[in-house]
């Protein structure tokens, strides 16, 4: 493929312990995670991860706790260094950066939102939001101007002089988001950013992130253990288990064609009718009848028409062209795979 990627992860492995290099050799010789832990007290965090992340997309890395997803995301801004492998951002291997360049990279190019917010408790909302700008040496007056924009953007105008402890969890995470957006970084790392929030607030935040992303087109790497959240936000989803990448694909691809048993069990309970789009199920054919659906609509939009008649329903792509048809048979087949 000739497409250029924003972030490339190449053969990254990470082992925690006294002598990671030696342990890595054992892993490459075929030793499993459990055996490694038993024999040499080393923890296999990540094993031979390869990822390609496109500019402007939201890339979700999903896995249960202990799967290595938080370890993986910390490799992108080198909060954690891999035992082996390369991480390329815009073609530059971040592992080759010296201290000074690494700091500049973190200040300008990549920013991060944390699960437990990790705000500075002794600083106000405004001071938290402009922290990254001040660290980069921006004049305080200018930084405050920019900070005020970001605070407005996340809907916290009026709370500039509050302290984080005076805000609810959802509001604190908005501060975290504003802090990450303030530096104008092209890449946004979100480590379970919404996991600590109540379900309703979480949904609000997901929608707000989608709005912001539609305007700003950042490259977002989003970590979650919540499949619904992954399907809602992710252009591509990577599923991680025990430090090994099990499948990478779009939401519908993963739902319709799970790569292995683990992924299949993972996605079993998802409401496919709502998560799978018409476009993903369309097959070649000639539409009959009046109803034509957009490729991006969920399959459930076709249910009432399919219930009423057996005729194939047209599906049109983004350009308005007919891309294919949905029939009762294909839809039922697809949904029955669970």
């Amino acid at each position, binding site marked *: 493929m000739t497409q250029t990627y924003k972030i490339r992860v190449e053969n990254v492995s990470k082992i925690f312990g006294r002598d990671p290099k030696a342990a890595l050799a054992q892993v490459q010789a075929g030793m499993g995670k459990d055996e490694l832990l038993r024999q040499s007290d080393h923890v296999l965090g990540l094993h031979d991860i390869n990822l390609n992340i496109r500019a402007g997309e939201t890339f979700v890395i999903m896995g249960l706790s202990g799967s290595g997803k938080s370890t993986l995301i910390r490799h992108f801004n080198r909060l954690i260094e891999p035992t082996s492998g390369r991480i390329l951002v815009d073609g530059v291997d971040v592992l080759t950066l010296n201290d000074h360049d690494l700091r500049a990279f*973190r200040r300008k190019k990549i920013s991060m939102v*944390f699960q437990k917010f990790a705000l500075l408790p002794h600083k106000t909302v405004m001071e938290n939001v402009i922290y990254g700008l001040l660290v980069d040496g921006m004049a305080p007056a200018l930084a405050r101007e920019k900070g005020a924009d970001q605070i407005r953007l996340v809907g916290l105008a009026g709370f500039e002089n509050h*302290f984080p402890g005076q805000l609810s969890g959802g509001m604190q995470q908005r501060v975290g988001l504003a802090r990450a957006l303030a530096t104008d970084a092209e890449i946004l790392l979100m480590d379970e950013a919404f996991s600590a929030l109540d379900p309703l607030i979480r949904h609000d935040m997901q929608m707000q992130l989608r709005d912001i992303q539609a305007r700003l087109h950042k490259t977002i790497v989003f970590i979650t253990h919540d499949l619904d959240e992954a399907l809602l936000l992710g252009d591509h989803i990577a599923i991680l288990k025990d430090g090994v990448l099990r499948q990478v694909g779009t939401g519908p691809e993963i739902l319709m064609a799970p790569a292995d048993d683990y992924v299949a069990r993972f996605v079993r309970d998802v409401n496919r009718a709502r998560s799978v789009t018409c476009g993903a199920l369309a097959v070649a054919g000639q539409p009959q009848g009046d109803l034509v659906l957009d490729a991006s609509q969920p399959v459930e939009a076709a249910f009432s028409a399919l219930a009423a008649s057996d005729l194939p329903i047209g599906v049109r792509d983004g350009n308005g062209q007919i891309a294919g048809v949905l029939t009762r048979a294909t839809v039922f087949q697809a949904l029955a795979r669970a």
Partner: protein
Amino acid sequence: MADGFPELFDIRSFGRAMDQGFNQIVANYGETLEAIFLPVLKALVMMEKVLLWLPWWGVLLALAALAYAASRRWTVTVAVAVMTFCIGVIGVWEQAMATIALMVISTLLAVLVGLPIGIAMSRGKRMQAVTLPILDIMQTMPIFVYLIPFVMLFGPGKIPALLATIVFAIPPVIRLTNLGIRQVDAETVEAVRAFGASPLQILFSVQIPLAMPAILAGINQTTMMALSMVVIASMIGAGGLGYQVLQGIQRLEISSGLMAGLGIVLLAIIFDRIAQSYGQRMQKSLKLES
């Protein structure tokens, strides 16, 4: 004598060599060292003079104002004012001023030296592993032992008293600075690292401010230990309340010893109240905000 104990090396000649070596240092560098510490001596004498030059109610007002600034509570302020008044009532005002001067200067110097050491300790396991046993020794060594080398170097007077007090009082501020910085939430530090903060920026914008309650507790303990050292330091010429206690022993006068002792207790309560209420207020505001 413990007969038959294996004599691994000749401790007597080792002791002689040590004494001789130190005598040489005294002979060669005594004057230089005295010159180095002359400014400190001047500051100490100056502070004592100012405290005695001020009318008693001026000192009382200053301490009350300090108490209010630290606590923002009238109860603490009034209590401090009343206790300061009592110091005058029991007739040890002048000695108390000398003691305050010695305590304040030695605490200041202890903090000035101790903070950087504590910070350095918090940054590496090795530094901590080396420093902790030294601090343990400093705190368990009988205080009188410190007096010997300082008196030899400077002769009896205020400077050896000050230095011995610093050595005795410095461990808490070092320990608690180290502990406070180590207890700062690792995620908060990681977050600012992710935003490209340099180690110095992390230290000054996050670690020290968040460690402040612990550091203040350390300074408070250092102050108290400095105060408890004044009686002993008076044996080598520190003057002040401790000297009056010493006189009480020499003349077998219960009254003068008791009054001076009460004065020390009052000073301890005054400075402890001021420091503690400031620490509590700070901790409360940090809790509210986190």
